[in-house]
């Protein structure tokens, strides 16, 4: 087990790309604490798998260092780093039984036979495959295979970290929930550092203590699910997390007010960008937008109402900008309405980054 320190990591897939400034990973400088469950969340191509492979040692970064605790492992191979990885598609050794699969990494490391037997038996019980221990692994279902590949990592009790690369992609939807909670359970039991790559926000938010949101080769925010929801550091986080995502309204500042398409919105006190002349945007989650009778708020045109069963999503237009609001299922929706923003829920963004309150 180890704390993983990513020290100014940059990566380009070839020297030519690096010269052109085309980095798959632009600069990541962060640390994953020992025993934490982290999710790397972001859209396809944001560099999350690249970052994971750099941690595991399958890739060597172009610049920067990877440290496990105080040990610099940048140039070490995956086995020397002592990490485990679960891949998108379950990797099992077809010709071996479940038991042999779990024993394989131990056998390669010349662990004594008796110890292998006890550890494998223990692991079979923990991942719930004891009944199928002597079956050939290839006949198992996808989620069982994925558990085997996880077990192969956990069975080496001294692994520095376990890395997951979108491990639930091929799992049936009804098994996803179960496997995810089993993962969480195993994390609690083993207290290992786990890093989980996904593009599915539900997966990330339910699995991880801390979610690392990546966008375009950079880490844009690291935080608990709550922090990501309430105070997105970047408009991308606001847009990517939540369904529908945060409303982002370009605006102009005048004194203590924001001008959005000519409508004045009062800003909470102490909120103003340090420098002017930047692109200013207002962010508000649809959850904190409410409909009020005409004349009591900011006038909007309602365009569409989507009923998703538990609540209604109102799609409206404020001037030339789109705006979504989530309202309760039982609330009537008037033809003409204004919107009001909950106090203290307004975020201000300058050049896409959050403006901190003074």
């Amino acid at each position, binding site marked *: 087990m180890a704390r993983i320190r990513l020290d100014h990591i940059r990566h380009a897939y070839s020297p030519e790309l690096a010269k052109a400034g085309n980095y798959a990973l632009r600069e990541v400088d962060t640390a994953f604490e020992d025993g934490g469950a982290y999710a790397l969340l972001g859209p396809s191509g944001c560099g999350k798998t690249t970052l994971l492979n750099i941690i595991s040692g399958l890739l060597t970064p172009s610049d920067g260092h990877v440290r496990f605790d105080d040990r610099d492992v940048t140039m070490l191979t*995956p*086995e020397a780093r002592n990490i485990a990885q679960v*891949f998108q598609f379950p990797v099992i050794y077809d*010709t071996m039984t479940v038991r042999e699969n779990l024993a*394989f990494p131990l056998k*390669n490391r010349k662990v004594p036979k008796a110890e292998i037997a006890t550890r494998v038996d223990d692991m079979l019980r923990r991942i719930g495959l004891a009944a199928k221990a002597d*079956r050939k692994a290839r006949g198992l279902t996808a989620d069982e295979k994925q558990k085997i590949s996880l077990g192969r990592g956990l069975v080496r009790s001294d692994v520095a970290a376990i890395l997951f690369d979108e491990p639930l992609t091929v799992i049936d939807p009804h098994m996803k929930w179960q496997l995810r909670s089993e993962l969480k359970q195993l994390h609690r039991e083993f207290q290992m550092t786990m890093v989980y790559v996904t593009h599915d926000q539900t997966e990330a938010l339910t699995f991880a203590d801390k979610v690392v949101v990546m966008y375009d080769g950079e880490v844009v925010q690291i935080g608990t699910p709550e922090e990501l929801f309430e105070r997105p550091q970047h408009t991308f986080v606001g847009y990517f997390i939540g369904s529908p995502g945060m409303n982002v309204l370009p605006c102009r500042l005048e004194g203590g007010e924001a001008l959005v398409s000519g409508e004045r919105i009062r800003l909470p006190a102490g909120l103003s960008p340090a420098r002017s002349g930047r692109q200013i945007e207002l962010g508000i989650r649809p959850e904190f937008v409410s409909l009020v009778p005409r004349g009591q708020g900011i006038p909007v045109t309602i365009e569409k109402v989507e009923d998703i069963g538990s609540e209604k999503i109102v799609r409206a237009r404020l001037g030339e900008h789109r705006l979504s609001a989530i309202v309760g299922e039982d609330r009537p929706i008037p033809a003409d309405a204004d919107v009001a923003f909950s106090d203290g829920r307004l975020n201000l963004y300058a050049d896409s980054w959050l403006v901190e309150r003074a």
Partner: protein
Amino acid sequence: MEKTLNNKAWFFVLPVLLLVAFSAVVPLMTVVNYSVQDSFGNNQFFWYGADWFREVLTSERFHDALIRNLIFSAIILAIEVPLGILVALAMPKKGIFVPVCLVLMALPLLIPWNVVGTIWQVFARTDIGLLGYTIDALGIDYNYVRYPLDAWVTVIVMDVWHWTSLVVLLCYAGLVSIPDAYYQAAKIDGASRWAVFRYIQLPKMGRVLLIAVLLRFMDSFMIYTEPFVVTGGGPGNSTTFLSIDLVKLAIGQFNLGEAAAMSLIYFLIVLLLSWVFYTVMTNAGTDKPLKGGAE
């Protein structure tokens, strides 16, 4: 589900039936017909019963040819399958050399059998052939026309040259279909190069390897053209394989009845051995039935 019965279906099967009948069943039945009769000039045929079969099965000539053929196939498989796997493992997985290697590998497969025979017949000659002359010049007394061992080596090397690429191409196809994640997982599990081969590459190649073994077995067991061109079955009878012997019997001696009986036995042996290979290789990796455990 209720099955629909419709006799019109037979009508649609008819063309295939006719085609198969004329391409396989009728010729095969002709052979069966010959195998139970003795023939003389003027198209006279006499019932001979199962005597031809008895004669073939007890003839020393047939036994010798069969043993030669079995040894030949065993040697061919023992050389070409491991060699093919090794070459496939050594081939590049990406880059500009992939098409180059593939084309080079495919070249021998495109040459007609008798041309291959002719190439080697000349190549291995001690008077004008580059290979034969060189070996002789090195002080080794090599002559495939005179020495049985040299004839065997020549025929085997020729077959390896001609057909190993087939095994290579099949194995290569199996290898490139293995996702990268398998190699990465093996690396993380600390697997040795041998373990990667044994537990990842070999199992993933299983299917294509089965096809390769079957094809190479059948082809080598039925080999005719190349040894016929190079050695003509000699020296003596040392490279007279079943097919060469069969042609001698049927066309040389015009003994149609015995040749027909031999063809049928030959055919059944190929069929039987192929079935054995197939059964053994497909069952190799499956679960052994567990006591009381339901699959």
